[in-house]
């Protein structure tokens, strides 16, 4: 038996923004690529996302925000994950993100930002290369 399990991904929509087309497409793309996917639905607080990530034992959290509140919301998710000791969960993001914000988000621990138009293939490739199932199968 392989010690590796399938990667578990949480796609989350933080904040009040309801634009979920991107999030839904990414969730489906991951699912079709063989990942286990949990989609939170819209209007999640950072706390709700962090507790879902820990409870669901995910390897990756993908955040999507189109409202302009990403600087606060994305960093808050990373901060609260760290506070709960969940440093091993990779966080990535996407949405309407001005280019100048990207370095600051990366500094705060968001591993990668995917901008509008990024092909699904590219996001999935990146995930396979950069995220490894860190835990043994349950």
């Amino acid at each position, binding site marked *: 038996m392989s010690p590796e399990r399938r990667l578990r991904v949480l796609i989350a929509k933080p*904040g*009040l923004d309801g634009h979920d087309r991107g999030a839904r497409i990414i969730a489906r793309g991951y699912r079709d690529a063989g990942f286990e996917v949990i989609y*939170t639905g819209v209007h999640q607080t950072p706390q709700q996302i962090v507790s879902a990530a820990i409870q669901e034992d995910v390897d990756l959290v993908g955040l999507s925000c189109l409202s302009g509140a990403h600087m606060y919301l994305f960093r808050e998710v990373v901060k609260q994950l760290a506070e709960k000791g969940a440093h091993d969960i990779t966080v990535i993001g996407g949405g309407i993100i001005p280019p100048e914000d990207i370095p600051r988000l990366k500094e705060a621990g968001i591993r990668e930002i995917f901008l509008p*138009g990024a092909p699904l293939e590219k996001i999935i490739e990146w995930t396979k290369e950069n995220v490894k199932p860190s835990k043994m199968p349950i």
Partner: protein
Amino acid sequence: MSHICSEMRKGVAGRMFDSLGDERKGDAMFSNKTLNEVRQGMKKWLEEVKGFTSDFPGKRRFSTISDLDIDPIYTPENITGLDFATDIGYPGLYPFTRGCQATGYRGKVWTFRMFSGLGGAEDTNQRWHQLLAEGETGLSTAFDFPTLMGYDSDSPKATAEVGKCGVAIDTLADLEVLTKNIPLDKVTTSMTINPPASVLWAMYLVAAERQGVSWDKIGGTIQNDMLKEFIAQKTFMCPPEPSIRLISDTIEFGTKYVPRWNTISISGYHIREAGATAVQELAFTLADGIAYVQDVIERKKLDVDAFAPRLSFFFDSHMDFFEEIAKFRAARRMWAKIMRHRFKAKNPRSWWMRFHTQTAGCSLTHQQPYNNIVRTTTEALSAVLGGTQSLHTNSFDEEFALPTELAATIALRTQQILAEETGAINTIDPLAGSYFVEALTNQIEDEAWEYIKKIDAMGGMLAAIARGFPQKEIATAAYKFKRQVDNLERVVVGVNKYVAKEEAPIEFLKIDERVEAEQIKRLQKVKRTRDNRRVALTLNNLRVACQSDKNVMPYVIEAVKTYATEQEICDVYREVFGEYQDPGFY
């Protein structure tokens, strides 16, 4: 080439009139003699082009952006059953395929209505005055997310969202600043607001009253369309059933006291932006419209003709030029049939579908953003050729942030150039009679009826939403489109073809972080200076009204006058009606 012959569409033979009554007189537009000649000519032509088309470049598919297959040419054969009088007709006359206004744009050019809102009320008031000075003819308010969701600027849920995607409005005091020196009896205002629509409308009504303008003199629109929120835009608060009740309350109130106000804008825009096809956008919007009309008739016992003339619509104008024109024409014709035959409306005004259009935000690209000006231009032209009453053109920088003044001005100028320079307004419904456009109009109508039939069979739109039907249909269409773009089956210039080696940075708008702190300060000042006993009393009266079947509007207006905040009023709704949780279909 053979697939073209076999797929040659059969005019309107398959059209559905079962629930609508066949109105056609049976006089087809083309004689049998003409049709025979066309068939023979077509056969000859196909023989002739065989040699050229055998090595047709890559044997690629030619289809609309919504994935409808398109033939190389269209002839009378594609519209054999079309009847001029009953299917096309004249502008201002049933079935309104050619427009609701008899004089088209010759009588009145569409309203240039630019959606705008940013920062605090004062910032937006300034932008509005500037847009009016530049020749805009109607106002349209974009609210920030906390306002859209019924939260005050000092709510923890509002952190980092205040003034970002639009203007922050917490109390009547903000709305008074927003409308300062705007003559509310002369300018019409559209407010894109949904779950808290009753609250923002009440604020506007009171602000008008305080300007000395009576309610029968003001005009405008509240979006107030919750079904499309559950289906697509996901700005929701209470569950569907009480949400519909609040909408019927506003429609009833408007019918009685604010006769020039459009109390709902039944919106396909957000459905399309969420990834729907043109047919889905049209079908789901009409099915939503049916649900609202049904509810007002049943719940309020109003005669359909009492309120139907004030129903308005809102569509997207996407990149596929002809598909959009066909969609707009089909939309008017379908709504006219629905109102006349399904709801037995007698007043021709009830048969009208008046609509606002916005160019497709989802078609704009982050890459090479100046190209977005061109996209918006062709989309706007589709809307104009489709006969829109009102238009918003997106700014090229909206993939980055809210538009700068320069970008918003170019977008407005785009409309002015179309209206003043291109000649597009000279004749009404200029594409009528085009074999292609008429055939496509019929096809879109037929496919939309199929959806409406399915939704009727489920028990109507509320039942369809409960089982996730429209949500899943849209999710599938959105995913399919994304795969097509990723696989290069569809080209998006600058994204998957003609990609720039290096993207030149552009200037875009940043909302000052101080806006949030200042707005919270303003809100707290209002809370300190108002009469809190009166606030509590009016909120309690509203609670009691919500628990009964009384119309909530008079109670919301009373609460607004005491400077009760938007969230305080919405919290009453949440408490009485509960909150809706996103089922998260994908």
